[in-house]
């Protein structure tokens, strides 16, 4: 039987298995390889909160979805073309998202009676054998047996050998999509170079999987997805959290400020701490604090001393930091608070995505306590958005909240990375030393942006006291005076509002500048909204898309823009938050579309929602 090679425009593949099966690694390796051949891509890792949930069960399933294409894509895909199922539970969880006629690659051993029972299949039912998968292209592969066979000459226990199963699968999928193995071979050498047995077993399993595709005659076709026509330039693959890390480092470099991160580990934000901790040669100080409160207050201490102070967290940690954010607002010093949102309330859904902390970011503090809020829309956009958050923070002397979420934090895409020289400089200066004969230093005297001076300890003549008590205007002394308090509340608000004069006007992502519907989004819904709106525009529908990076203050022209459409639809992965703020500020009857299932909104469902409104 000859094997033909077919060219496809796009593929959505999902690697799914038990959380101990190494599916995240397999997925990310395939992603790197895909990026290197120049496909456009978007990924969606989806894993349980437990490190090792009960083996073989439905809650223990870990998945990694990858969408790759020779054209531009913006989402990890609504449905899969290919499902790799390492066990029965993985099939059970993911079959509903597999397209009719799609390919299933099933690991036979994962469908033994024990695994079938753990996945809650009825006694005696095996989906691989009962014909229930007849509508799909099913390949049953004895991954475990063949992996053990390939590693028979290596002296290690069966349990250790079985850990290389994922490399067998990866090797096979590389064969299926006509790839070479070099990127993964290099990765394995890098990772296991010093542990020869583990390195050998992984390399051998990878090669065995590839060879299996070549020798077994079950597969009639291999596939090629050609290079995507992305804008010219140099690319790399990047996840949101890594992009966020780089954005912070770049902002520190371009502002000349030392970077200090105070952080307490929390899913899905910890990767930023891990990543920043690696770059001490950039002068970065990372401090794993004893709790969320110490994380933010240590960053406040560092900012006060003249560092670019940053704290990273997720929803529950934001709740704990609220009082300290108020202090930073009162002190009027720079601080970046990064919230990688996850499902809430309380501990909620730690590994699932949600956009449900917007109202918390807006209002979740005591007193009148306004802070700018910036959000990122795609993994690579985390770089630009956090860079902008840093610029606003140091130039306007204010804490800034940066909102990302689990979906874009862990998701990957190609990134046309910038050169240092391309990045806008971040100008910042400290208050200069004062001689005895100079006028008295006034710590709350403001510039044209209403920003006060950044007067750091160690500067002669600037000795002054600040704190959480209300300040007297200009002098910064404690003041309980009625008129002064009202003036200061209004001034702090005006300072944040005035940032609107220093950010770009809102632009449309696509569509007519007036018409039937404007779909207004923020954050990680970008890809789904963009794809859905482009589909409808191709059908001749009067639909436009605007996506907000600046959530507080809004761009100056937003109200004007919203007024030009008959309807404004706001899709969010929450119970309706931006929609409340938009209604409040612009008095328009914006329409919410909400999904609160811990997963992104899909293109298909948005196309349906928008169509119903047309």
């Amino acid at each position, binding site marked *: 039987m000859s094997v033909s090679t077919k060219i496809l425009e796009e593929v959505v593949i999902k690697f799914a298995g038990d959380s101990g099966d190494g599916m995240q690694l397999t997925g990310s390796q395939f992603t790197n390889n895909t990026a290197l051949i120049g496909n456009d891509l978007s990924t969606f890792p989806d894993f349980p909160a437990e490190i090792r949930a009960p083996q073989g069960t439905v809650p223990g399933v870990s998945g990694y979805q990858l969408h790759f294409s020779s054209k531009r894509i913006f989402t990890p895909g609504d449905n899969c073309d290919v499902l790799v199922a390492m066990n029965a539970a993985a099939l059970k969880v993911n079959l509903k998202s597999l397209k009719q006629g799609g390919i299933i690659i099933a690991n036979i051993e994962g469908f033994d009676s024990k695994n079938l029972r753990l996945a809650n299949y009825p006694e005696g039912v095996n989906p691989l054998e009962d014909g229930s998968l007849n509508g799909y292209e099913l390949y049953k592969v004895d991954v475990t047996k063949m992996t053990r066979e390939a590693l028979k000459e290596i002296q290690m226990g069966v349990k250790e050998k079985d850990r290389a199963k994922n490399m067998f699968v990866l090797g096979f999928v590389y064969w299926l999509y006509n790839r070479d193995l070099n990127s993964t071979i290099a990765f394995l050498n890098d990772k296991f170079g010093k542990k020869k047995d583990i390195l050998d077993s992984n390399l051998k399993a990878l090669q065995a999987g590839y060879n299996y595709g070549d020798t077994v005659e079950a597969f009639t076709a291999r596939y090629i997805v050609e290079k995507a026509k992305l804008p010219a330039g140099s690319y790399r693959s990047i996840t949101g959290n890594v992009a966020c890390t780089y954005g912070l480092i770049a902002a520190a470099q371009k502002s000349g400020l030392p970077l200090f991160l105070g952080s307490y580990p929390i899913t899905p934000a910890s990767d930023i701490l891990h990543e920043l901790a690696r770059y001490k040669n950039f002068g970065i100080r990372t401090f794993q604090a004893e709790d969320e409160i110490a994380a933010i207050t240590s960053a406040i201490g560092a900012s006060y001393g003249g560092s670019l102070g940053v704290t990273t967290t997720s929803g529950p940690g934001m709740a704990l930091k609220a009082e300290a954010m108020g202090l930073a607002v009162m002190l009027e010093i720079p601080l970046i608070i990064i919230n990688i949102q996850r499902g809430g309330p309380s501990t909620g859904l730690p590994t699932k995505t949600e956009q449900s902390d917007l109202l918390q970011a807006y209002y979740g503090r005591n007193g009148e306590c306004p802070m700018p809020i910036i959000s990122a829309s795609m993994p690579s956009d985390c770089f630009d958005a956090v860079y902008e958050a840093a610029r606003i923070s140091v130039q306007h002397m204010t804490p800034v909240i940066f909102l990302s979420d689990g979906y874009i934090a862990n998701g990957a895409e190609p990134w046309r990375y910038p050169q240092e020289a391309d990045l806008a400089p971040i100008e910042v200066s400290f208050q200069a030393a004062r001689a005895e004969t100079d006028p008295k230093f006034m710590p709350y005297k403001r510039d044209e942006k209403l920003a006060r001076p950044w007067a750091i300890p160690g500067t002669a*003549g600037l000795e002054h006291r600040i704190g959480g008590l209300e300040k007297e205007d200009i002098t910064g002394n404690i003041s309980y005076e009625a008129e002064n308090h009202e003036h200061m509340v209004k001034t702090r608000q005006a300072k944040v509002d005035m940032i609107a004069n220093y950010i770009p006007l809102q632009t449309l992502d696509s569509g007519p500048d007036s018409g039937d519907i404007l779909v207004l989004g923020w954050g990680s819904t970008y890809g789904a909204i963009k794809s859905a709106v482009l589909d409808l525009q191709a059908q001749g529908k009067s639909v436009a898309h605007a996506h907000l990076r600046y959530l507080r203050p809004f761009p100056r022209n937003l109200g004007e823009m919203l007024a030009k459409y008959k309807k404004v639809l706001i899709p969010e992965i929450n119970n309706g938050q931006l929609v409340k703020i938009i209604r409040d500020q612009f008095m328009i009857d914006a329409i919410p579309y909400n999904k609160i299932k811990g997963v992104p909104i899909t293109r298909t469902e948005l196309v349906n929602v928008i169509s119903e409104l047309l």
Partner: protein
Amino acid sequence: MSDVATLEPNQAAPALTAKDFVTDQEVRWCPGCGDYSILKQVQTILPQTGIPRENIVIISGIGCSSRFPYYMNTFGMHSIHGRATAVASGLKASRPDLSVWVVTGDGDGLSIGGNHTIHLLRRNFDINILLFNNQIYGLTKGQYSPTSEEHKITKSTPMGSIDHPFNPMALAMGADATFLARSMDRDPKHLQAMLLRSNAHKGASFLEIYQNCNIFNDGAFEIYTEKSSKPEEVIFLEHGLPLIFGTNKDKGIKLDGYKPEIVNLADGHSASDLWIHDEKDFFKAQILSRMFDNPAIAGHFPRPFGVFYETERSTYEDQMKMQIDEALAKKGKGDLNALLQGKETWVIE
């Protein structure tokens, strides 16, 4: 990236005096409060340290004691309840050149901020913690604190407190503090000496200061501060000297194994039989920290004042700096372009 610019002490500048550390703000503690004395002693000793005023930062939390920075003409931050130690940690980590002081109280430092206090101590930041212990909540008008004695009647404990109090010295000892000392508001000379010792110590210094709240807990430490009872109730620790106390200097502490006992020098015991204080002795410091008897109980030990323990351990900020230096030596100065590019790239024409 450069570290934040710091100024070298100006050697030519005239020597500072206590007055140079006074601010134009009206001091608003209650008349008669023990805080006045502590403020005065701090203002008195700072010129002796030779640290330029602009390099001194005093960070406080919330409570009566935490108003302290407003009255000190240095850099200062009156932060939020319990968090002064954490703010100070971030400042010191990023600015090791500064002289950082934390002013806190028994509520701020041991209750709402207890967590940060113990973590600062174990990390050993070179920060001086001044814990004003008045065994009461003053600013909130008289509730019991984590150092209040059992059965204390306060506004929130009309039938008496059922909380067992903290022993601050034992707590700090348990957190592996590298410098522990106790002093009192009403003994200016001793307090000045202890403040200077705290400042001289490289590493986290924990100085507990017994401070009288004359409004809500007046006389809490009277037995240790009044001339009539002080000689019998207080034992001043001095390195290398025997533990002797008493109006006639006729009593001492002797160690029977690990058990301290009070002996009368008139009964044939000589000074050479006594416990000789050794600030470097970790185990004896534990025993000292446990000499914490209720003075109402007959046969109780006198309360030790002075330096309980001092040891050397690398500070957090020095180790942090060493790791940065090591990374720089190994990898060279960070190259942003190389970072952004990463290892695996491709080009679209």
